[in-house]
């Protein structure tokens, strides 16, 4: 038993069992009448409806659409957010001028600006991607800036003592040292992006898992609605695992 608990598989197994335990508690709560089954469906009925939702509601296409939009937004967030954070770190005056605005932008409920995005980009997947990008880019900028600013002075001095060029200093010391913090920003950005992507699919009825949740909720198919939410969580899990792999590749030894 002790050996089992010490194995590297123990944490994920315990995590999974905790989730199962929580769902079992909810199931019991519903069955004994502590939780209203017309608000929260029994987890067993959600699980039972998964197959039906997949076959009848076109889950593969919808999952692919939402995942594609999330991937597009994640790519834009990375390509714009990380270099923008680097620029703010490099130019102190620029940082002083805009850091506060970027922080305010990060906290703004951007989903409310969706009519503006519709006017600018039209009713298309591009609008949804841009909405995800706009809502997720600010934390990446801020965390990139924080990561670069927080690199230990001694590591910079090692680079200086070896006469590294500014580009070598950035590529070989600053950037790898900042990777863990930058990835915290990417995870936050992806969460914000996914919330807004699914939210916009929901609002403008433009396919994807968000629209499916809307349709199932309007049909008052509660198990189906929650089953669709499970697939949104699955998109999130896929991207988080992918980010974890990329981080381990970029920053081994952590």
């Amino acid at each position, binding site marked *: 038993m002790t050996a089992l608990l010490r194995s590297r598989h123990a944490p994920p197994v315990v995590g999974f069992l905790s989730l199962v335990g929580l769902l079992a508690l909810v199931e019991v709560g519903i069955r004994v009448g502590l939780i209203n089954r017309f608000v929260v469906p029994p987890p067993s009925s959600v699980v039972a409806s998964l197959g039906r939702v997949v076959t009848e509601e076109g889950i593969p296409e919808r999952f692919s659409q939402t995942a594609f939009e999330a991937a597009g937004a994640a790519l834009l967030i990375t390509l714009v957010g990380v270099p923008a954070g680097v620029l703010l770190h490099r130019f102190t005056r620029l940082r002083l001028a805009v850091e506060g605005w970027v922080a305010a932008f990060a906290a703004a409920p951007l989903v409310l600006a969706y009519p503006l995005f519709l006017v600018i980009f039209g009713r298309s997947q591009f609008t949804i991607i841009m909405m995800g990008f706009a809502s997720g880019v600010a934390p990446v900028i801020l965390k990139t800036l924080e990561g670069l600013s927080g690199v*230990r*002075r*001694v*590591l910079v*001095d*090692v680079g*200086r*003592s*070896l*006469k*590294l060029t500014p580009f*070598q200093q950035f590529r*070989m*010391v600053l950037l*790898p*040292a900042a*990777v863990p913090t930058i990835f915290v920003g990417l995870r936050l950005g992806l969460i914000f992006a996914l919330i807004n992507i699914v939210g916009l699919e929901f609002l403008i009825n433009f396919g994807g898992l968000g629209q499916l949740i809307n349709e199932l909720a309007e049909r008052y198919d509660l198990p189906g609605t929650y089953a669709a939410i499970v697939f949104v969580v699955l998109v999130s899990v896929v991207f988080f695992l992918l980010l974890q792999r990329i981080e381990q590749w970029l*920053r*081994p*030894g*952590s």
Partner: protein
Amino acid sequence: MKGTAMAGDTPPIDARGPGAGDPLLVVDDVSVRFDTPQGPVTAVDRMSFDVRPGEFISVIGPSGCGKSTLFNVIGGLLDCSAGRVTVGGATVRGPHPSIGMVFQEESTFPWRTVIDNVAFPLEVRGVPKAERLDRARQTIALVGLAGFEQRFPSELSGGMRQRVSIARTLVFQPGILLMDEPFAALDEQTRLLLGDKVLQIQQDLKQTTLLITHSITEAVQLSDRIVVMTYRPGKLKRIVRIELPRPRTSDVVSSPAFGHYVAQIWGDLREEASRGMAESETAGRSP
């Protein structure tokens, strides 16, 4: 024996080192002043000494005497306000290729394995991969870490990580090894054992070494001469020549001569350290 002091003597201050040959490193009348909100502060005041090829010199002084400032000036990371530092006769302006620096803080790159950490300076200098890995392996063996090449720093102890830092500096064969309290964060036994390792390396490579330290025993164990600094502003108090036989090991700490040197240097430092403590307490009391 001009410029040096035997244990028990009270020598005149003379910064010239013993032995033949021109000095490799000269610290010539160096002062460092900083502007602070409370006004200008002199951290180092007219320090002068030299280091001859193959010598092991320690600079010792109480906390806050400007040792690390001096380390940064000699390493070219900080400009001095007056005076100059020369290496082989050339004035140091910025980091010098002949000076290899080992820092007080843990400074290995956590994302690189031991061998990639050690090979880093060679990678920066464009040495072909096969050659740099070969040289890195040899240097890792030199510091006693053979077998740990593929480990990451997070898998090593503090003492082992500092040995990686030393290997990373030795790998590009610097003319002068400059170390700033590299064992400060380690326990006493590990410090003594690492001192042995440094002594062995210094003797094998005839490595010219300048060590900044606040540990009297470490300085006496390792050095040919010890430069004693005063408390703020850091001035040269005197230079003590250590005439313990070489090759040395940590066994030397049990010899009467060792105790004699330690007592002598503590005699020099006690007054300075007391002054530093008194000033800190006064500053702490002021509103």
